[in-house]
C-alpha cells in the first residue's frame, strides 16, 4: 500500500494536462457543463477525445478502451476537472456502450460502438416511466413482435437531454405473462427519428430543460435492435445501473467545486473580512473536504478492486449515496456564501445581453439554480433510498 505516484504516472499527468490545454476548445473554457449549451458544444470535447482514442477509457481495450490503470483514470478525471471540461455524456459511454459490448451481438457492436466512441451519436435512456421510478421493474411499456419488427407502445419519463438524442435505449416488456415483474423485459435500441416517438420537455425547478417525457406510439423497430436475448433485459438493466453508479461519485469535480467555493469565500465578506476567515464557515468547508476525502479513498479502494477483476458490486451504492450528498452540500454552501446575490434569477436575462449594471458577482449567478438542480442527484440513478436498500439486502444480508 502506498500513495506515491510513480515517475510514469507523473509523466502521464503531464501528457494529459498538455493535451487538454492544447486541444480543449477555446470558446468552451470556463463555461462548464450546462444543459442550455448547443448540441455541437456539448459534443465537442467528446469528438476531440474520440480522435485521440481517449473517449472511452473504461472500456476493454479491444473496444477502444485505453487500458489505463485506476491511478491513470484518477489522474484523467482530475485533469479534466481542473479545466472544467464538458466530458462525454454518460448515456452512450457509461451506460449503453458497456451493455452493448458485454451482451450484444457482433453486428450490434459493429453498428453502435464506433458512434459512441467518436461522439457522433447522441444517446438517451428510456428507463423510468410515470408509474415506474424506484420500482423500475413495474414498467409498462410494451414491445410486441410483429414479423421482423418490435412494435413499441408506452411512455418513458425523465429522459435526460432526449431533445438532442439520435438513438435511445428502452426497457420494454416483451412477455406480459412472465411470473415475476423482472422477467419478460427486453433491452431494445431505437432510432429517435422513428415515426411514433415524441419527445416533450419537462421544465424543472431550476428553470432548465434537461429532462423530457418520451412518448412511444406504435414505434416499429427492427428486431436486430434487440440487445442480447429477449426477456433477459432486466439483467442488462441492473448491470447498467451498477456501472452508472461507479462513475457517479464525481470526486474530481467535487474537489474542483470545493476549490471554487474557497475562492468565493475569499472574495465574499463577513463583517468586513473575507468569509473564509469566519470559523463557522471555514469549518463547513473543512467538513465537506473531509467527507470528500473519505469518499475519494473509498472510490480508490473500489477502483483498485475492479483492477483486480472484481466488477462493480453493491459497494458502488456507497459511492452514489456519499457522492451525491457531497455534490448537494457543495451547492448548498455556495448558495450560502453568495448571500443576497443568490436571489436574482438570470435564465434568459438580461434579454439584451447588456451588462451595463452587473447584478452581483458572476459566481453568484448559478448558485441557486445549481442548488435546486442538484436535488435530483439523490433521486436519479436509483434514489438514495434504493441504494440503501441495495446495501441492506446485498451486503448486510437483511
Amino acid at each position, binding site marked *: 500500500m502506498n500513495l506515491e505516484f510513480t515517475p510514469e504516472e507523473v509523466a502521464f499527468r503531464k501528457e494529459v494536462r498538455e493535451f487538454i490545454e492544447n486541444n480543449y476548445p477555446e470558446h468552451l473554457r470556463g463555461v462548464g457543463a450546462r444543459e442550455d449549451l448547443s448540441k455541437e458544444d456539448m459534443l465537442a470535447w467528446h469528438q476531440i477525445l474520440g480522435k485521440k482514442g481517449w473517449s472511452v477509457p473504461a472500456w476493454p481495450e479491444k473496444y477502444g478502451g485505453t487500458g489505463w490503470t485506476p491511478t491513470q483514470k484518477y489522474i484523467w478525471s482530475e485533469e479534466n476537472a481542473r479545466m472544467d471540461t464538458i466530458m462525454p455524456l454518460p448515456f452512450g459511454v457509461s451506460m449503453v456502450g458497456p451493455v452493448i459490448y458485454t451482451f450484444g451481438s457482433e453486428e450490434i457492436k459493429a453498428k453502435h460502438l464506433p458512434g459512441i466512441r467518436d461522439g457522433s451519436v447522441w444517446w438517451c435512456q428510456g428507463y*423510468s416511466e410515470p*408509474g*415506474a*421510478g*424506484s*420500482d423500475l421493474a*413495474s414498467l409498462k411499456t410494451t414491445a410486441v413482435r410483429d414479423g421482423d419488427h418490435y412494435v413499441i407502445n408506452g411512455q418513458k*419519463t*425523465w429522459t435526460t437531454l432526449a431533445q438532442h438524442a439520435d438513438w435511445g435505449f428502452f426497457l420494454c416488456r416483451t412477455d406480459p405473462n412472465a411470473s415475476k415483474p423482472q422477467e419478460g423485459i427486453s433491452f431494445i435500441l431505437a432510432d429517435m427519428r422513428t415515426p411514433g416517438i415524441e419527445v416533450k420537455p*419537462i*421544465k*424543472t*425547478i431550476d*428553470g432548465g430543460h434537461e*429532462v423530457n417525457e418520451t412518448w412511444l406510439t406504435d414505434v416499429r423497430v427492427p428486431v436486430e435492435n434487440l440487445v442480447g436475448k429477449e426477456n433477459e433485459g432486466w439483467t442488462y438493466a441492473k448491470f447498467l445501473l451498477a456501472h452508472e453508479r461507479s462513475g457517479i461519485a464525481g470526486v474530481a469535480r467535487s474537489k474542483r467545486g470545493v476549490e471554487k467555493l474557497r475562492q468565493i469565500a475569499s472574495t*465574499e*465578506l*463577513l*463583517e*468586513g473580512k473575507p468569509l473564509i476567515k*469566519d470559523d*463557522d*464557515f471555514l469549518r463547513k468547508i473543512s467538513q465537506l473536504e473531509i467527507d470528500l476525502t473519505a469518499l475519494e479513498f473509498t472510490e480508490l479502494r473500489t477502483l483498485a478492486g475492479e483492477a483486480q477483476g472484481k466488477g462493480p458490486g453493491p459497494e458502488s451504492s456507497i459511492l452514489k449515496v456519499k457522492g451525491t450528498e457531497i455534490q448537494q452540500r457543495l451547492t448548498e454552501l455556495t*448558495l*450560502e456564501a453568495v*448571500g*443576497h*446575490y*443568490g*436571489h*436574482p*434569477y*438570470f435564465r434568459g*436575462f*438580461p434579454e439584451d445581453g447588456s451588462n451595463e*449594471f452587473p*447584478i*452581483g458577482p458572476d459566481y453568484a449567478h448559478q448558485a*441557486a*439554480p445549481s*442548488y*435546486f438542480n442538484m*436535488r*435530483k442527484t*439523490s*433521486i*436519479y440513478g436509483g*434514489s*438514495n*433510498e434504493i441504494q*440503501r436498500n441495495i446495501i441492506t439486502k446485498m451486503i448486510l444480508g437483511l
Partner: protein
Amino acid sequence: MDFNFSDEQTMIRDSLARLLRDQYDFDTRRKVVGSESGWRPEMWQQFAELGLLAAPFSEEDGGLGGGSIDSMVIMEEFGKALVVEPYVPTIVCAGGFLKHAGTPEQKSEHLEAIIGGERVFAFAYAEPRGRYDLNDLETTAKKAGDAYTLNGHKAVVVGAPWASHLIVTARTSGDRRDEDGISVFIVEKDAKGVTTRDYPTVDGRRASEVYFENVSVPAGNLIGEEGKALPLIERIVDEATVAVCAEAMGAMGVAHKQTVEYSKQRKQFGIAIGKFQVLQHRMVDMFMEHEQSISMTYMATLKLDEDEVTRKKAVSAAKVRIGQGGRFVGQEAIQIHGGMGMTDELAVGHYFKRLTMIDSEYGNVDFHMRRYSRLTGEDQAMAAE
C-alpha cells in the same frame, strides 16, 4: 398565558384564506409571476379592502389597532399560497418605520396611502459588500442646506420594481462599519439620480439593484434622528424577520401536507410509498420541524415589544430554527416526491425554493446563531461581574 387568536384575527385569517383559495391558486400565481409586471395591483387592492394593510396599525394612525400578531396571521396565510405581493417591504418595513418613528407630517403624507393600497414601498438596506450587517453601509447621505445628497448602491431590493417609494438606510457620518452615524430616509423612486435595474428572483418575485447618484432628498424625509437610526433599523428588521418566519411556517405546513398526500397516492412495489417506515419517520420529522417553527414564530412575535436584548435573542432563535427547519422540510419534500418534486409543474418545488430563499432574508442561520451567541455571552459576562 393564552395562545388563542382574537376574533378579529380569526376573521382576518378566514377571509384572507378564502380570498387566496378563490383567487390565488397555484396556476394563477404561476401566470402572474411569469407576466410582465410579476404581481397583481388589483390583488393588493383587495388586500386593502380586507383590511390587511390596516391591520397592524393603531387606530390613531388610521389602522385597525392590531399589531405584530395580526401581521403574523397574514404572513402565515401568504406563506401557504406563496403570495408575492410586497407586504413585508410596504407594511412591515415602511409601515414600521412610520409607525415607530415617523413625524406627524410623514404619517399623514404616507400612512393613509399605504393603508389604502395606493402606495407601495420597498426597503433598500442591503449592500453588495455588507452581507446581513445593517451597519455595514457605504451609501452616504451628506447634508447640504435643507436637503441630503445620497450616493451609493443598494443590492437586491425586493419589490422595488413595483414601488413608488423607497426606505433607504445611509451613512450620514462615520466609517463603513460604524454603528453610529446611520440614518433612514424616504426617497421617491422617480427622484432625479435614482436608477434601477429590475430583475426576477429565483423564488418568483421581483427585485432591483438601486443606484443613487447625487440624489437630493428633502430634510423632511429623514425618519428618526440623524445618525442614530441603527436601533430603529434593527427593530424594524426584527419585525420583518418574524414576518418571514410566519411566511415560512405557512409554506412548511403546505410542503409537509403535500408530501404526506403524495406518499399516500404514489405507489411503488405494489403499495403506497407512505407505507415505508423509512419515509414515514422522515415525514414525522418534517411535521415536528413545522410544529417547532410555529412555536418559535409565536414566541418571537410575542417578544417583539420587550427590551432590546430579549427581542433580539427571541428573533434570532426563531430565525435559526426556521432556517434549519425550512431547509429540512424543503429538501425532504422534494426527495419524497422523487422526480415529480423536481418539476416546475408541481407546487412543492416552489415551496422548496421559497423556503430556501427565506433563509438568506434578514440574516441566515449563521448570522442569527452568531447574534444569539453574542447576546447570550453578554448576559453571562454581566452576571459574572
